């Protein structure tokens, strides 16, 4: 269909391509214009680069773990190179430090800020139809807090490593010689970064919605971000005080957690998981939001059960606060407490399942385009379902007694965190990449990366379910020879997964060099971000966006002449928005 067949009284709304000066990437130049930017899109891009670097570092550590576990007695850290690098450390000590830093970096530096801070920062105001987040300076300061926290982690890595596991359990964390204080200070700072991001989004979504953007016209990504932000604001301060008390425990021996001074280590576990269990929903909820967008847009079909998905996000956010005890079934809680926590844990599966059913129902009879983001989204549904269902095994008291602290747990949370969050993150990056940089990537390359990630991931972690149920404990540097074949499968899988991720990186970077110019709406999406040019202008919209149904695809048509999607809208008067002659606010400081 071409623009010619538009009914009378309607017009084709085609944002076209941006001119260079109205594009947020190019409207001001120089490194300082980035370092002091208050533009949420630039801050989002800086986060994207930052969290990707952290992902790379954590990923390399993961490869190190898998290579070491290739043989029962360990391989990699027995190598002469490591003995030369760290002569005073046994291979097992190096292994302990590597898995600890892998966990800590992945959790605190990558997964928690990945979707909310990187994609969220870019997308929340645009999807909402706002010019920026409510507190742009706070937004920039939370990015720099993230950088500061990352520096502390790197210092910990360089100083004497960290070998407590990412959970910092006392009493070991109060007695070990490794850099616990540096790492906990880093996590404390990162906590504040996360709190400020969450606070900013809650306020933005509450007060910055333009006329017409009602709560139930918000894209589901915003609902997911809002739920995430609630957890960030409510749970993270408790982690902050816990880590502060841990630092005080190490320096002043305050005797709250340290049994040497009459403290109670189980109290630390309660405090820690009161944050860290909700934190796993900080990691997965925004992924749910991305998948809701991806499935709907690439099936070109209205999302099924919009309100159920929206409310289930909020339900998960609230339920997340009352299930932390399931991490501690074997820590010596009273039997009645464990039973209550086990029962509460099952309730979380209800809203999670609601989402999965709704996504599948959305795809049913949809006109599915198997684009890269869609393939990632389908992979997500598959992997998250496995991850979620195996979570029920662990939430069940009796089976958890057997499976606790085995590879089954490792496989479960990697299915949720990597198979869920990371796959959704990649899908989201591929989905919004044209919007972010204004370039299309190679679809073949993207699909190849999705296939490699999917195969590599399953090969890595499916064997670990079997390992765990056969009794292979987690965090061990060596193992019985009978486990060797499964461990070797896992290592091969990790290498394939690593290659897949590098392919994804390569495809995205190549698009910057030789990618085709991206149209405003490459996928035929109906949410507001597809109404502005790719990349968006400094203040996001050339004229105030008309807020409609975010999942109404009927008025979005493929225009064969223009070779892109356009929106057929009722005619309206064009009111140009004042575009500030002077651009980013760093100039005004």
């Amino acid at each position, binding site marked *: 269909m071409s623009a010619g067949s538009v009914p009378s009284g309607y017009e084709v709304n085609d944002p076209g391509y941006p001119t260079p000066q109205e594009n947020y990437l190019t409207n001001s130049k120089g490194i300082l214009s980035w370092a002091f930017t208050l533009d949420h899109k630039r801050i989002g891009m800086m986060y994207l680069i930052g969290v990707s670097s952290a992902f790379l570092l954590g990923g390399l550590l993961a490869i190190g773990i898998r290579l070491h576990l290739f043989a029962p007695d360990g391989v990699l850290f027995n190598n002469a190179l490591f003995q030369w690098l760290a002569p005073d450390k046994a291979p097992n000590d190096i292994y302990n430090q590597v898995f600890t830093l892998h966990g800590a970096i992945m959790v605190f530096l990558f997964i928690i800020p990945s979707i909310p801070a990187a994609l969220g920062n870019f997308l929340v105001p645009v999807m909402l139809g706002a010019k920026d987040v409510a507190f742009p300076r706070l937004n920039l300061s939370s990015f720099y807090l993230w950088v500061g926290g990352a520096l502390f982690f790197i210092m910990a890595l360089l100083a004497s490593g960290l070998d407590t596991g990412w959970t910092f359990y006392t009493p070991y964390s109060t007695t070990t010689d490794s850099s616990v204080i540096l790492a906990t200070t880093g996590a404390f700072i990162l906590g504040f970064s996360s709190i400020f991001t969450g606070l900013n989004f809650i306020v933005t979504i509450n007060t910055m919605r333009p006329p017409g953007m009602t709560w139930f016209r918000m894209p589901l990504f915003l609902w997911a971000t809002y739920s995430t932000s609630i957890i960030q604001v409510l749970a993270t301060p408790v982690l902050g005080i816990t880590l*502060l008390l841990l630092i005080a425990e190490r320096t002043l021996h305050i005797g709250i957690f340290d049994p*040497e001074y009459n403290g109670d280590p189980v109290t630390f576990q309660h405090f820690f998981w009161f944050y860290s269990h909700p934190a796993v929903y900080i990691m997965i909820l925004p992924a749910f939001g991305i998948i809701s967008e991806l499935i709907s847009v690439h099936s070109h079909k209205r999302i099924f059960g919009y309100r159920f998905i929206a409310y289930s996000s909020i339900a998960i956010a609230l339920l997340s606060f009352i299930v932390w005890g399931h991490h501690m079934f074997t820590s010596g809680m009273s039997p009645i407490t464990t039973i209550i926590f086990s029962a509460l844990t099952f309730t979380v599966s209800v809203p999670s399942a609601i989402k999965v059913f709704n996504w599948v129902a959305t795809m049913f009879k949809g006109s599915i385009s198997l684009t890269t983001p869609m393939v990632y989204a389908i992979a997500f549904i598959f992997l998250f379902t496995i991850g979620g269902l195996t979570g029920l095994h662990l939430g069940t008291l009796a089976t958890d007694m057997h499976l606790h602290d085995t590879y089954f747990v490792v496989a479960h949370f990697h299915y949720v965190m990597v198979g869920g969050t990371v796959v959704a993150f990649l899908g989201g990056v591929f989905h919004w990449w044209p919007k972010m940089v204004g370039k299309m990537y190679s679809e073949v390359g993207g699909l190849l990366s999705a296939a490699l990630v999917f195969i590599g991931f399953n090969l890595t972690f499916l064997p670990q379910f079997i390992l765990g149920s056969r009794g292979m404990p987690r965090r061990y540097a060596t193992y019985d020879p009978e486990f060797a074949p499964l461990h070797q499968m896992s290592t091969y899988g990790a290498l394939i997964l690593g290659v897949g991720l590098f392919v994804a990186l390569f495809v995205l970077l190549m698009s910057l060099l030789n990618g085709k110019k991206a149209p405003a709406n490459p996928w035929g999406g109906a949410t507001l971000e597809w109404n502005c040019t790719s990349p968006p202008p400094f203040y996001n919209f050339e004229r105030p966006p008309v807020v409609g149904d975010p999942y109404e695809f009927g008025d979005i048509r493929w225009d064969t002449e223009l070779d892109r999607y356009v929106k057929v809208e009722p005619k309206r008067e064009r009111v140009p928005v004042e575009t500030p002659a002077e651009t980013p606010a760093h100039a005004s400081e």
Partner: protein
Amino acid sequence: MATTDAGLASDAHEQPGHGHSDHGHGDHDHPSYLAHHFDTPEQQFDSGKLGMWLFLVTEVLFFSGMFCAYAIFRAWRPEVFEGCSQFLNTKLGAINTGVLLFSSFTMAWGVRCAQKEQHKLLTAMLATTLSCATVFLGVKAIEYSHKWHLGLLPAGLFSYDPSNPHPVGGPNYLAYICAPFALITIGVAIWLVVSFLRGAKFQLECAKPLMVVCLCFFVGVGLGTILESGGDEGHHEDDHAVVASADGTAAEHGDDPSHADGEEHAEHVEPAAEAVAGLPAAGAMSNDSADLAVLERLASDATNTGLQDELAARKAQSERSGGGILYDVSDDASATVASAPENVLRPSRAGVFFSIYYCMTGIHAIHILAGIGVLVWLLVRSIRMDFNRNYFGPVDYVGLYWHIVDMIWIYLFPLMYLIR
């Protein structure tokens, strides 16, 4: 924390201030205090206010961890908390409570002044609030330094010796605490003089209230010193000294009406027990019928231990001073009254009370310091007459913050000082 508060509040105001005048649409529909990305001043105010409330939620949760620790350990060893609480000076705590309540009142009045454009009064109210904050810190300095001197420290550093409650010598902690404040005061004084000599009117206007604020810290220190020496805690120790030396003629203070309840016990105390115990809490209780119930509870509690335990405790204490490790494993049902004070004051038990005390009041004090930082920023802006009936957000937000800091203290005071 000061910077984050300032960042939060300042985000909501005049972000690209001169950007407007530069490109010439700083007209009536987009006043200078309205940031570009907001449509109306109401939207800006609502955003800032919601942001501040959310920040306060995080503050409450931040403290909630410590309140939990308090609840857990108090439930675990109520006698330790009751015993150790006697080392806190109720008079100083009460004075500080009053000071903070008054500062909340002046802060709230300040918000009203900002809304009514009473610039002079707003400045006066902010300066009063600030002065209360520094008085609070001055009193706190006396409390802290006194306890450090006695060795009433967190578990790992706890070195209070009941047989020698008045250690001689040791570092002058009060001087260490006061030194940075003294430096700041001198700095402000120099600033005041220089701006007076140079005739810099605005700077002089700023320096004058700040000078008062700085001096109020030392008013607090003075107030604390006077009340501390006349306070109940001091009296206990005086009494003990008297009791010990006068060998049983302890009643000499009994006629003083200003004495706190604690020392009334001291009148009845057996001198020998007093000399051994050397502390007000349990030693003083021993013959008082009013406290017999408490003692019976202490004795019947299986976790309160007997002579054997006392021996273990002393051994462990000497081990600790030699760098050893203390494991608190004793559970002997044959508790005796005489051993109760020893148990209360075992570093592994009393120390945890003081750990929690220092964590909670210390982090509260850090919040006061942050509040001082933000209030100074408000004071300068109020002297610059930045606020008007349409734009008073920052005063309002800082007011909210100040009230929560006050409210946390309102909970801390009874939980720490008034549980005996």
